[in-house]
């Protein structure tokens, strides 16, 4: 545990906690402006969270601890990833945990916790949402693992800081076929995992079409705030991983105020640019029929497989 890693372990979670609702606000604002609407402003997600936090805690009759623990677990797992992954600083506070497999497992744990909570409510919507989310998760995980494999082959390690350092030393290898294929596969996976178009529509009010939103329909007040915050943080974390795995420029490599500051700014800019690109693309997309989603995810799996193959045989 280096001092640089320690600083990163403090700065990163704070940055993601504070910044992810803002990122969501920026993305919504971009969509609104592109669609010709005025938009609610980038501070709206934070205002929503503040409103929800002030509300009474209320849980549906018949639900168990699973339902109550899930929001906390969602935020906690995402926070752990925010602490350990190399977002602002190149070294990690807890090196061994900064493993790609561990990070993916942590993020999946959050998803599973929310899916179980959806089942725990015993309502048709909770079960329906959980069923859809699990289907998507089951199709996403192999892609994630194989894409990670493709990235770790050339470094010989699945340790995130090691991969990021290697990329930082030799930025040219990002343009290799393995790396590009893996990047595209990961982008599709991130879109599916964070419930964005064309897989899920986070803005819908149509309860029968929902995936993620259907699972969390029964949450209210502070619990809903945690779910919303957790979802926003996951989006930032996924975009941050994507950014730093392929484009780690600006990450703090030494312990200095300027270095850390540069790392924070670089991370914020990269994630915002990615989020803006995602929001812009969404304007031109429509939601796929649910039964077409597996086809999209199968395509991403194929890309990941090709990436892994390319990194073995070409890399």
């Amino acid at each position, binding site marked *: 545990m280096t001092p640089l890693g320690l600083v990163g372990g403090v700065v990163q979670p704070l940055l993601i906690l504070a910044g992810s609702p803002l990122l969501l606000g920026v993305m919504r604002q971009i*969509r609104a402006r*592109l*669609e*010709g*609407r005025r938009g609610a402003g980038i501070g709206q997600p934070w205002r929503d969270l503040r409103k929800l936090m002030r509300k009474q805690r209320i849980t549906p009759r018949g639900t168990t601890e699973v339902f109550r623990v899930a929001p906390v677990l969602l935020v906690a797992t995402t926070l752990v990833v925010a602490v350990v992954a190399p977002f602002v600083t190149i070294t990690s506070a807890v090196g061994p945990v900064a493993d790609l497999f561990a990070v993916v497992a942590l993020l999946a744990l959050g998803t599973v916790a929310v899916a179980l909570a959806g089942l725990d409510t015993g309502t*048709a*919507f909770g*079960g*329906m949402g959980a069923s859809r989310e699990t289907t998507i998760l089951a199709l996403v995980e192999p892609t994630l693992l194989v894409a990670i494999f493709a990235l770790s082959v050339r470094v010989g390690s699945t340790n995130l800081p090691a991969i990021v350092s290697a990329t930082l030393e030799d930025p040219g290898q990002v343009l290799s076929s393995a790396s590009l294929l893996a990047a595209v596969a990961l982008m599709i996976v991130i879109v599916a995992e964070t419930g964005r*178009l*064309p897989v899920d*529509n986070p*803005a*819908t*009010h*149509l*309860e*029968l*079409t929902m995936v993620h939103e259907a699972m969390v*329909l029964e949450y209210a007040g502070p619990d809903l705030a945690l779910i919303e915050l957790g979802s926003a943080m996951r989006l930032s974390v996924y975009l941050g991983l994507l950014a730093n795995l392929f484009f780690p420029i600006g990450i703090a490599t030494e312990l200095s105020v300027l270095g850390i500051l540069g790392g924070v700014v670089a991370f914020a800019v990269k994630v915002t640019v990615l989020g803006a690109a995602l929001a812009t693309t969404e*304007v*031109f*997309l*429509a*939601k*796929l*029929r*649910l*039964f*077409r989603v597996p086809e999209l995810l199968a395509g991403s799996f194929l890309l990941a497989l090709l990436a892994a193959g390319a990194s073995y045989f070409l890399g």
Partner: protein
Amino acid sequence: MTLHDPARPAAAAGRSRTTRIIAPDELPRHAQALLGGGYRIALVAGHDDGDALRAVYLFTATGERDAESRVELHVPLDPGHPHVPSLAALSFPAGRFEREMRDLFGIVPDNHPLPQRLVRHFHWPRGWYPMLAEAGDPPAFGDLDEPYPFRTVEGPGVYEIPVGPVHAGMIEPGHFRFSVVGETILNLKARLWFVHRGIEKLFQGRRVVEALELTERVSGDTAVGHTLAFCLAIEDALGLDVPRAAGQRRAVACELERLYNHITDLGALCNDVAHSILNSQAQRIREQLLRLNEQVTGHRLLRGAIRPGGAVLRVLPDPSLLRTIAEDIAEVVALALEHSVVRERFAGTAILTRQQATDIGTLGYVARASGLRIDARYDHPFLSTPIPRPEHSHTGGDVLARFCVRAEEIAHSVEVIAGLVAELDGDLGSAPPTPAVPSGGPGSSGVGIVEGWRGTITHRIELDAGGRLSRVKIVDPSFFNWPALPVALADTIVPDFPLVNKSFNLSYAGNDL
């Protein structure tokens, strides 16, 4: 055969109808002959004449046979034992009308294949019929009479999804019970009738001018359609002649209503597949049309323009402005149809076959999207329409067809308005005189048929000797079209339901009066 029984003054027919007074056991024979002769059942209504009950069956021919286009069967009933033979085996919509009549008047259809309640929910007391004259104030809701008979689907992996009547979005109340395997819908039961306002009863005893505030609110998005049908019925009953120019102004208002509603639906359909940019554009266009409505009639939803005997507009809509709007809409439609995912979501989704559409008796764009040529503007014209029927490019009965039919009707409506405005030549009309209602004479009855934006609206009114409304029966096309929704949804997947529902866009309030 025209019978006029002076002892039953309320049965006096208007101008273009043939009335037959028959005994209950003669009903199936007459109905079968009419249905076989190309007539469709447009309306069935119970009547409480004080000393007797009466069922009225209105049949209309869809051909262009002016004199013979409307036939009414009046069936006087014994108030102690009001029974009619069921026509459900002859006509599906007749079976639904019979259930409605049974719930409101206690007129029992014998041998009905589905005798459960339709309109009245089960917490309404048994044996209380709200439309009877002596029904009095609504009683307090009691305990459930019996559980609602949802059909239970059994089998491995089958589960039920109950949705509503309170929904996540701001839509009207309706409960939908899906029986599902995985995501595939095996069975859907739509349970409606949560918004019964007793509006037909509210009409009773009102003078004609006092009734317009009700007709404009039967279904909020069809103010013109229902008011126009009501006014036509009044004019039919009183033998009023409406100047041709007034008819043209009415048609302009009716087409304006079609325009703003169709573009709203086109946008909403795009929004339901999460292509919200087109919805934003459709909302912008809708707002332009609503503002135009306000200029033309003084009300954004076109209220206040149509009165018995005439119609008054403030300005005539500018055809060049409407053509610009139509081009704008055509661009939105083209963007939607050229988007591969949007088109994929629309095409082949929830097909209502031509045969199903015919059997259920669907109306309006739902029927036309399944290839039927039913359109009251041409079948029952109150005014000759300046341009011919639109020919539709898609008649496959899927969401895509219902989308395209709307889009093509927008272009058609704009041309209709342009033609009418040219003929009107700036004639805005003046307030028609309050219709002279003969008092003291025998009562009279009238029928009005209008192609509202959802489909054919039928009103049948009866005036008593004092010139007050004694009975108003309203049929919104939604009453005919609702049963088509579950049929079209068989084997569709659950996440496509909102899209399909929007492509039908039926009125809950117009259905449940």
